[in-house]
């Protein structure tokens, strides 16, 4: 059996199968990216925070655009070379295309990596601070967690005296982490009382774990097994008891509806008790001596004396000062604060000057004053250059909200260099990777800041979690990146394994390269829209 029209086009449609298929696929891709871009429009129009317009460094995006356009040209040439019968040229052009894809992904990776290490925090008063966190240190050396990684100075610190684990839901890596921390602080985590339970019906209780046993996953697993067995056993007994009760109730109340008699139908708990097993839903451990434990903010709901981890572990102990410490603050953004002030009818400048940050931090205050002067200068310049609108009497052009209320890293650099905004000197590497913190340390360009925990509204790295702009940016560019990888793999396959097919059926190979090329152009096409939308708008 042979499928027709694999190589030669069908006469009435003029197309071979895979060409129809790729166009169908592209139509569905249009809908997929259409879904994302319409989500972008929806989110942007509906955003209740200032949309971070033109927030990404343009240079990496621009270079990536050039790379992708270049690869789009070379892939056409690769196809044309095949059509003209130049295998050698095909290899060169296809090689360039695949190399372009690789470079594109490397740049993309660098961009992502910079973001993933950049911290943002939104304070209770909607001031936004960005920068780099410090690491926890003891005697000048960084403290390591159980993965051997440095711990950022953004932890919930609790002087822990007891930990109560949920026997079913405990999360193993967190137990490892607790043990590591206890060891580091010279504490022990052990059972405060015997765990004993009836494990066979009608028998006396037996001890599953003794008081003083140290916390371990194996111990918890043992308790979990006993608990689950007891739960299953008891559930079965209670179910059949309830069935029996209903049977009797029905017989005693003929013609009555369930809901008329249900309140009187209950399990006779006392009669059932001797046959039941002991369920152990949680196990309490003591920490001795009580010592400081660090928890990641997202994992814990903290309280003054009692906190709860996401896996239902209860942590007893006093909440310590848990500030978030920025080693370098590289942006202060009052746009959100200003937006809320305007909504409430408050002068944004007054609101900003009453914010926690301006009131409590000298460096921030200086930066703000500097920025105000810069804004005033810009306002004057624009007025001189463009004049006043005759109808409204207002200046034709005014500084943007971003210029008024955001002090970004380039502004901080300009301030430290003692020049006006936009006259600072920034290296190409900095355009790519963000500011060179160490190199600029001498001028104290980026201030140090400690933010108390109770001033924090929301904190995150510059990941999709930071806001909906970054969410859609990462999702679309990430998905686009996957398309680049997928397309490049197919093109690379033709490059490295196409020779045999070229000799047996060059027409077919040309068809396939054309089809893969169509996909590649589509990937380019998505980027043509993604670049201005995410980088320039």
């Amino acid at each position: 059996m042979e499928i027709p029209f694999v190589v030669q086009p069908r006469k009435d449609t003029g197309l071979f199968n895979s060409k129809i298929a790729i166009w169908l696929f592209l139509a569905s891709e249009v809908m997929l990216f259409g879904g994302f871009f319409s989500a972008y429009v929806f989110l942007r129009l509906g955003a209740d925070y200032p949309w971070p317009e033109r927030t990404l460094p343009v240079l990496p995006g621009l270079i990536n655009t050039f790379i992708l356009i270049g690869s789009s040209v070379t892939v056409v040439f690769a196809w044309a070379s095949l059509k003209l019968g130049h295998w050698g040229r095909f290899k060169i052009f296809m090689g360039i295309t695949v190399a372009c894809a690789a470079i594109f992904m490397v740049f993309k990776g660098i961009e992502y990596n910079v973001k993933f290490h950049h911290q943002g925090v939104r304070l209770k008063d909607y001031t936004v601070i960005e920068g780099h966190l410090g690491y926890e240190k003891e005697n000048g050396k960084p403290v390591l967690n159980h993965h051997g990684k440095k711990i950022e100075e953004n932890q919930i610190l609790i002087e822990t005296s007891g930990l109560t684990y949920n026997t079913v839901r405990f999360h193993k890596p967190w137990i490892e982490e607790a043990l590591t921390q206890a060891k580091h602080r010279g504490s022990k985590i052990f059972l405060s009382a015997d765990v004993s339970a009836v494990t066979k019906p009608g028998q006396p209780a037996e001890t599953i774990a003794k008081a003083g046993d140290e916390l371990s996953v194996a111990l918890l697993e043992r308790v979990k097994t006993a608990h689950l067995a007891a739960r299953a056993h008891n559930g079965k007994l209670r179910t059949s008891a309830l069935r029996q009760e209903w049977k009797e109730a029905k017989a005693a109340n003929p013609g009555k509806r369930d809901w008329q008699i249900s309140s009187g139908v209950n399990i006779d708990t006392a009669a059932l008790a001797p046959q039941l097993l002991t369920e152990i839903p949680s196990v309490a451990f003591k920490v001795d001596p009580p010592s400081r434990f660090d928890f990641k903010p997202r994992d814990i709901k903290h309280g003054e004396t009692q906190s709860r981890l996401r896996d239902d572990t209860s942590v007893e102990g006093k909440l310590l000062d848990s500030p978030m410490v920025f080693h370098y603050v590289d942006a202060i953004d009052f746009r959100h604060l200003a937006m809320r002030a305007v909504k409430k009818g408050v002068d944004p400048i007054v609101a900003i000057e009453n914010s926690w940050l301006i009131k409590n931090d000298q460096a921030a205050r200086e930066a703000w004053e500097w920025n105000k002067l810069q804004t005033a200068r810009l306002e004057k310049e624009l007025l001189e250059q463009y004049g006043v609108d005759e109808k409204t009497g207002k200046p034709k052009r005014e500084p943007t909200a971003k210029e008024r209320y955001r002090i970004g890293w380039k502004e901080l650099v300009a301030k430290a260099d003692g020049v006006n905004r936009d006259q600072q000197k920034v290296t190409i590497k900095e355009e790519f990777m963000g500011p060179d913190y160490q190199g600029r340390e001498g001028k104290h360009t980026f201030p140090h800041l400690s933010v108390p925990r109770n001033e924090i509204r929301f904190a995150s790295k510059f990941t999709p979690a930071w806001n909906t702009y970054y969410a859609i940016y990462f999702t679309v560019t990430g998905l686009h990146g996957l398309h680049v990888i997928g397309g490049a793999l197919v093109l690379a396959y033709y490059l490295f394994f196409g020779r045999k097919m070229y000799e047996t059926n060059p027409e077919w190979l040309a068809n396939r390269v054309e089809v893969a090329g169509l996909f590649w152009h589509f990937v380019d096409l998505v980027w043509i829209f993604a670049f201005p939308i995410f980088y320039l708008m």
Partner: protein
Amino acid sequence: MSAHSNDHHDDHHHNPGFLSKYVFSTDHKMIGIQYGITALLFLAFGFYLMMVMRWSIAYPHQPLPEWMSWIFTDNWKARWLQDGKVTGETYNMFGAMHGTIMVFLGIVPLGFGAFGNYVTPLQIGAPDMAFPRLNMMSYWIYLAGGLVMCASFFMESGAAKSGWTNYSPLAGFADGQIVNQWLAGQTQWLIGLVLLITSSLLGSVNFITTIINLRARGLTWMRMPFFVWAMLVTGFLLLLAFPPLEAAGIMQLMDRVVHSSFFMPSGLFTKSEGLADLSGGGSPLLFQHLFWFLGHPEVYVLLLPAFACVAEIIPVHTRKPLWGYKSMVYSVLVLGFLSFIVWAHHMYMTGMGPAVSTFFQTTTVLISVPSVVIITAMLISLWGGSIRFTPPMMWACAFIPMFGIGGLTGLPLAFNLADLHLHDTYYVIGHFHYVVAPGILFGFFAGILHWYPKITGRFMSPFLNQLHFWPSLICMNIIFFPMLLQGMAGFHRRWYNGGDAYLSKAADSTNVFGNTVAQYIDMNILMSMGAWTLAVAQIPFIINLFTSWKFGRKVTSDNPWNATTLEWATPTPPGHGNFEFEPAVYRGPYEYSRPDHAEDFIPQWEEPKRTDSSAPTKPSH
């Protein structure tokens, strides 16, 4: 890219092994059968979930009986049942999974995957699908998606619990207590969904390419059986409507796993989490828009294959051409187009503005026109025909009124004033179940009975079919008609205890007509009894399906129904490559009872005699 179909030159000479013949088959017929059996199994599982839910609705205070709960372990029951009673959480889980399984794992694969795969290439005279390997991949990805979703029943979190529509922010938070989000039922649901979407995208690309490019010589567009048209439109619906849901699924996955806020508004506060540790700023409505952009075309993805089956069966068993073939074709195209721009009628209650509601109300009412054209054409096709009440015909005849009830009860929901009252009540449930269960499923039963002789070479037993048909027809109405009544009285669709909680406050819970819950609550028991009886009524079908394979009455020819379309020109069952001659088509698909012809049918592939006045032009590509 394109499949390596040139590797199969020697298929006529060697016998493939068991694995490549029955499991990793690239033959569209075997893949169709795989789809069919898998989908029927999923349907049975979805049905089971519903039986448990109906118990909870009818007898919320009684433990689940042994005959319903034996399939689960004691440990599972201890986790999810309270003293054997169904809890609200468990009910939600079963409800969400019932919907998901029935729609995405049951009906769509049965209609599009099974019937589409088996019949379409045969009807257009193609040797196989355009991309046989892609076809196999679609099936396996579908199976993987289904299994991923169902596996979550046995996880600590349980399966998804936020309704089959998976609305955010509820679905964004559900199972938030699970630390490793990849192992939460709600996340698994999304992963399963992305797999299913991938599968149907591959499938639809394959179908459309096949229909466009592999039609037999002479099979022009207007000679294509209605079935093929319906599959073409279904393919386009899947192709273009699913991607926005895939986008929504990916975004929700991001919300769950990396805590983004696509669908999470600012200042969200929940009982379990307190003030959400999220950036906020997202829009729950965005999810609904993207979901229903798929959701509504999806309704027609379910429906069109059933239309397709019935439209094929009626002419064969009435010995009369399909009435208004061309109008039906145009209607199905218009239906396909309109189905993309009606979605927000699911969202009247979300506070959209009046202009946009009016737009969607108008298009929604408009879309009833093509569906009514199709159903009317089918009805008129019966007029004056010599109807043979063969097993498939019985189901096809039942389909028309049952779907009619389903369709007509949808009209009040299209108007946003009436919808304010009916939204999220049992009326809605009754409406769409009338469309799907006695409507679409009846169409599929008809299809199974109709093509069974081609697939196996034997007829299914008419006696067992009677045992299956009549109780099913009666039970379906017992289940779904009271729903319409309850719904108009204001019964909410998500009460896990069937309204029981409102009994104690009967006086405060009167509706606009002064009626109370107590007056309608006994219907719950009637409907549940109907549902369980319906389950019993399926047993004859299951027996019939498997025993007839070996013991059914043998067919005497390759064309046992004396039908005209190309699938009956193949040997029975068709071998790999389908046709033993190069098929060519000389006329339209429904040439029955022509007065100028001795026999009451003229197959599409029969070469015209020179004297035949109706001799069409020479077939060509």
